[in-house]
């Protein structure tokens, strides 16, 4: 599972969705794999405004990526774009769980 996907996942329970603790889901026992995929600068520039930045910071920190800026940048240069590409698109969680912070339900990741 890609980190970009986790920015778009919440608990499946309707009752949890309205609760702030249900987003983002939290990784447990995550095992990472680093892929190498073509960098698409325009794609990264266009998904940037769509990303929920505080949720991305939480997820990234749980996986050990701590060098993202605290505030969402308005635009990214090539270097920052490549870094986002590496985290959002190339990093895969291949084993582990995603846990809802509200009800504790977990979604297993098993690629």
């Amino acid at each position, binding site marked *: 599972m*890609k980190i*970009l996907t986790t920015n*778009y*996942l919440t*608990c*499946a329970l309707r009752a949890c969705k309205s609760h702030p603790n249900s987003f983002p889901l939290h990784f447990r026992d995550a095992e990472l794999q680093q892929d190498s995929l073509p960098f698409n600068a*325009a*794609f990264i520039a266009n998904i940037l405004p769509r990303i929920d930045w505080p949720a991305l910071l939480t997820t990234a920190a749980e996986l050990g990526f701590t060098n993202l800026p605290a505030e969402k940048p308005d635009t990214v240069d090539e270097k920052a774009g490549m870094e986002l590409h590496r985290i959002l698109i190339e990093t895969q969680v291949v084993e582990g769980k995603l846990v809802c912070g509200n009800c504790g339900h977990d979604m297993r990741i098993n690629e």
Partner: protein
Amino acid sequence: MEIVNPEEYEASHVHRVYEHIAPHFSATRFKPWPIVEKFLCDLPIGAIGLDVGCGNGKYLSVNPDIFIVGSDRSPSLIGIARGRETQDSLVADALDLPHPDSRFDFAISIAVIHHFSSLERRCHALRSILATLKVPNNSSDGGRALIYVWALEQKKSRRGWDEGDRQDVFVPWVMSKQFSTSAKAKGSQQNGQELTYMRYYHLYRKGELEADIARAGGRVLESGYEKDNWWAICSPVK
């Protein structure tokens, strides 16, 4: 047709069937339908969306400039979809989608909603899909979903159904020999060397998809008929 327990009914006559036929089904599903392909290719670069009931994930890689999270009720089909490395897919139920509300630019749900066995559940599925889409406001159009369902009116097809026929039907899936090695499962009929599985469908009448979308609180932007299917593009209302 009144089904006493639609959840159990769909588990037997839809979910289990797809689990058993997954590899064979997938081998027959590789060509994107033209209207779906156009819908995906017309999206702006960086658009993020869902494929609800993505099956083997054949639409996930049609446009490499967008990002699609595919989901399906069948773990076997998701296992096949996983091969598409630039996109992502997961096991989920269309009635309980694990996605936040109002964040997505688009969604597609192709040949899925017709497997729900009551009007209430079909509208529930449409409502869950609409809920994921960006809500239109004064400065932007909001997200759009493309929905495809099998039509009752398909006189010229191999099945030959037409107006006035029963809408709730079982459709046989005849498993070819090469895929039936492990398929000694319940719900199949052994017929010589071939196994036949019966899948449940609700065949849509003309105008019914639009009516269901309206009942689910959506707005139909465009709709039509293509090769034995009714389709509609819809969005949430302001």
